[in-house]
């Protein structure tokens, strides 16, 4: 089928006569619409999953790569001295933008979820934490570790690489899986539309024979089916997409940006992306019906 702007316009405007030559089909049409809707609904979530895990991987990669933590594990009386020594080393370390010891109040806030707010921190040998922010060049973690072990025996450098790497890996895997799901959903829509179109064409074999006898071209006959299935997929996916978006809007949003589950939704211009799902479904239906129709018509009279 030739495809240019004029034929696209004609396709959208439709040919009422051409639509009428194929008998209306009630129940199976609704099934097609429903399946397209369900697939679009799932596609919205797959898309949200991909985007959220992509965002998360990037966020973890960016923020955590720029920060490290030093724990000063020492008896209470030496803790302050070792902390100062560590901070002095950090001041002269290349690649460190800022370094700062957390206050008691901050450490208490960090521990509160585990021990409750009434914890008397000063009576416990809680290690002091130093937050290190690297500059854009990054620091030499191995060299720093060596220097710390020489001068501050109680200092343990954690550059987060150990637990960051698998998390980022998992997040990007999740992102890949999300995109793969979208591809699979599109393929399933194509398969479903192809089956439905085949069934419709087979059920209308006599109609097609009559149309061929009176001089209808294959394109004319195919058009009636293609238009029907494309519009069904488009409308079904439109409804599914809207319902999916509403569900995404209703997801509870947490204040904590780092939390994965509450960060599932779309952000910013990403809200526009699901709008392409119905178009994708329509395009898939257009192609699937077209090839099914051409194949079937060749076999018929």
């Amino acid at each position: 089928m030739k495809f240019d702007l004029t034929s696209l316009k004609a396709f959208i405007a439709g040919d009422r006569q051409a639509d009428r030559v194929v008998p209306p089909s009630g129940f199976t049409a609704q099934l097609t619409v429903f399946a397209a809707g369900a697939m679009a609904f799932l596609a919205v979530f797959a898309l949200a999953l991909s985007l959220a895990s992509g965002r998360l991987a990037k966020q973890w990669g960016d923020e955590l790569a720029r920060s490290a933590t030093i724990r000063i594990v020492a008896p209470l009386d030496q803790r302050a001295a070792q902390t100062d020594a560590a901070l002095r080393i950090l001041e002269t370390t290349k690649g460190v933008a800022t370094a700062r010891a957390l206050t008691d109040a901050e450490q208490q806030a960090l521990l509160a979820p585990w021990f409750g707010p009434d914890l008397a921190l000063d009576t416990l040998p809680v290690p002091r934490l130093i937050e290190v922010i690297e500059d854009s060049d990054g620091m030499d973690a191995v060299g720093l570790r060596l220097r710390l072990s020489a001068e501050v025996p109680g200092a343990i450098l954690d550059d987060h690489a150990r637990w960051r790497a698998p998390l980022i890996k998992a997040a990007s895997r999740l992102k890949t899986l999300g995109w793969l799901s979208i591809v699979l959903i599109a393929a399933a829509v194509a398969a479903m539309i192809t089956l439905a179109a085949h069934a419709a064409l087979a059920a209308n074999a006599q109609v097609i024979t009559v149309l061929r006898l009176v001089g209808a071209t294959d394109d004319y006959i195919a058009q009636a089916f293609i238009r029907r299935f494309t519009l069904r997929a488009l409308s079904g996916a439109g409804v599914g997409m809207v319902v999916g978006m509403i569900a995404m809007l209703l997801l509870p949003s947490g204040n904590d940006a780092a939390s994965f589950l509450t960060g599932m939704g779309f952000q910013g211009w990403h809200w526009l992306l699901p709008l392409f799902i119905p178009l994708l479904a329509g395009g898939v239906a257009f192609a699937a019906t077209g090839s099914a129709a051409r194949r079937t018509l060749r076999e018929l009279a």
Partner: protein
Amino acid sequence: MIELENVAYSYGGGELLSDISLKLAPGSFHFLTGPSGAGKTTLMKLCYGALLPTAGHIRLFGADVRGLDRDDIALVRRRVGVVHQDVKFLDHLSVSDNVSLPLTVSGRHAEAGGADLHELMSWVGLTNRADALPPELSGGERQRAALARAVIMSPDVVLADEPTGNIDWEMSQRLLRLLIELNKMGKTVLIATHDLSLIRATKAHVQARVLRIANRRIQLAGADL
């Protein structure tokens, strides 16, 4: 218009038609007769591209049928009006929509509901049945509707396979007059029938040639008919 040159056609094992040469000149009127199963319908189908010959050449409007693609065949059928023995319609459309279907599918919707349609419907006596659905029609009405559908495009050639099979003598006379009128307007007409009285009645009005299929071959029948 339609030329067959040493055409043969075989179904599976046996040869049904062999060495058939036939030329339907513009404005000619032919009857095709022969016993049932002799291949009248097959010959008809060869004439509008529904079947391809197993040997020989068929030229439709000057083009070899083997060189035509599906779209070309569709265009040929707009110039050939066909009345089938077992008439098929689109059962969900009214009789008048079915009669104007060839106009609809060739993009001439504007004419589909025009005056020609009404005239044609009254000519075949179906004005009162215009809004009926095809399954509600009697056998004779179906055949009249099929003839109306075959000629609405004002085709160059009309092929009719037993067009009077299901209808009474008076109505078959009417259909025949319609076909004779069309022939006088310059259309080529080929009617397959085994109704000899129909052939005799026609010969009084028009110069008709009678072809007979016998022993897989086609012969020009004598003047005795």
